């Protein structure tokens, strides 16, 4: 697998230099994170003083947890990503199936209209989408955060590409057994596209877990704020500049994704590769 550059693998001194360079960059790369972790796990007086004898503590996490409704923020984010993903799966599956399985007048035009969202991203339409939410009377709610992202052009595109590779014979066999169109979708297409659902799911969950600007604009209360916005409110107003607590809160909010990544590294990287753009 790694023999791709076989004869060009550096040897001797060159190899040493390469290894040293790679490790140096890695250390530099991880340094800000390690620094934050140091501050989070030590008492405030050690947050900027490095001493091997400094006692480790979880006190900062406890104080952060008590200082802001993080439990609620976790719940909100959990509801947000689950709801978004479920709706995305449903809508994108149906739409992709329509594009692959049916011929109808204007199919190409409609597909182009869908793809337009890849360019006109919800991320930049904040002003108008805010007005729409206000007219719908759902400002400051979790659905308002999710709605602009639910009909994902990217999801439709990805699933359409996958559904196209489903062999016609499988579909015909199911039809002979008396399955109707929706049953064929559920019994033939969806199971065959499983890896793509996993990949898209991971990418979607990490995107919405991390999304910030739109939720910041559209939410205004503890009941609807996701973790990212909660963290920002906490870090900018509730605390002065108690870095140990802010670092603890920061690590806490990223922990689920970070742990997931460390445990399922290969799966994560494969998914990002498969799904490419977020």
């Amino acid at each position, binding site marked *: 697998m790694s023999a791709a550059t076989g004869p060009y693998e550096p040897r001797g001194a060159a190899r040493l230099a390469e290894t040293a360079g790679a490790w140096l960059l890695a250390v530099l790369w991880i340094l800000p994170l390690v620094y934050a972790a140091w501050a989070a796990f030590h008492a405030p007086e050690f947050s900027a003083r490095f001493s091997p004898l400094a006692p480790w503590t979880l006190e900062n996490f406890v104080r952060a947890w008590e200082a802001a409704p993080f439990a609620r923020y976790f719940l909100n984010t959990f509801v947000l990503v689950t709801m978004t993903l479920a709706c995305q799966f449903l809508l994108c599956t149906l*739409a992709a199936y*329509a594009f692959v399985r049916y011929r109808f007048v204007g199919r190409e035009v409609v597909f182009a209209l869908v793809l337009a969202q890849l*360019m006109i991203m919800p991320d930049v*339409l904040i002003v108008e*989408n805010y007005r*729409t939410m206000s007219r719908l009377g759902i400002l400051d709610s979790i659905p308002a955060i999710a709605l602009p992202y639910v009909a994902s052009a990217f999801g439709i595109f990805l699933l359409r590409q996958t559904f196209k590779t489903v062999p016609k014979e499988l579909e015909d066999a199911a039809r002979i057994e008396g399955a109707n169109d929706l049953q064929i979708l559920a019994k033939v297409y969806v199971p065959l596209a499983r890896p793509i659902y996993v990949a898209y799911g991971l990418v979607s969950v990490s995107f919405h877990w991390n999304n910030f600007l739109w939720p910041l604009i559209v939410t205004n209360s503890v009941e609807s704020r996701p973790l*990212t916005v909660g*963290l920002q409110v906490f870090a900018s107003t509730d605390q002065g500049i108690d870095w140990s607590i802010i670092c603890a809160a920061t690590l806490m909010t990223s922990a689920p994704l970070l742990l997931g990544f460390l445990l399922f590294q290969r799966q994560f990287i494969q998914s990002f590769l*498969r799904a490419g753009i977020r």
Partner: protein
Amino acid sequence: MRMKHRTAELHAWLLLLPALALLALFTHWPALETFIDSLHSTPRGRRAEAFVGIDNYRQMLEDPVFRQAIVNNLWYALGTIPTSIALALLMAIWVNDRIAGRTVLRMAYFTPTVLPMIAVANIWLFFYTPQYGLLEQALGLFGAPARNWLGSTDTALACVTLVAIWKEAGFFMIFYLAALQQISPTLAEAAALEGTSRWTFFRRVQFPLLMPTTLFVLVNAVINAFRTVDHIVVMTRGGPDNASTLLLYYIYQVGFSFWDTTYAATLTIVMLLALAIVALGQYFLLDRRIHYR
């Protein structure tokens, strides 16, 4: 037969309906409305909204903050895109070789990608803090004078640029890594037999073969340079003195701090134009073959 065809067509539209309705409501209509709004004035107090033609655009061209946001955004793009792509390529080549501990290296490079940008911004905010921050402490060891990295107009933009590079390079690395592993080992063997140097092999064989990946990564990097401003909100709020204001951050500020919605719409049109240029470039450069496996 005709009847059956009709029913099938109806089914297709029913399947598409939910997705299309939401796309129309949250993509197509707002895009159109943005344009319409940009031709109107923002209602203020007793003054109702009125059609003002291209007044907003004229105001925009004379707005020094808008100009600065564009210039900043271009510098930001110029700072993040080539650097993160070059670093990604370097990381991928290193991790692809059989270096000791390559799994750990790959993880170190990729980890920033999984973190929320908002968390990353907080971590770097701490890193840059005057006096306390690691950066100041490290520089202090070498006797460098203390300075406020995020609070100075000279360095604020460079500081947020660095954060974006840190966050992005590892993400692009995985695409290069996958592409490198696709290159057939026989190519390297053949080139080695001919006595080609490693640098020539990279320049004449690997790099051209990686071109589709480079273009794919490039498009994503350009888009990210315009649509991600989370770190600006946390680290500098566009300051000091607009030194780190990016276009989307300015839209956010005009729309939600100054509540000048029609001017924000005018700025959004510029943003959409920028994205349209990227999309056109992608269409012609990428030959419609997006990097898929």
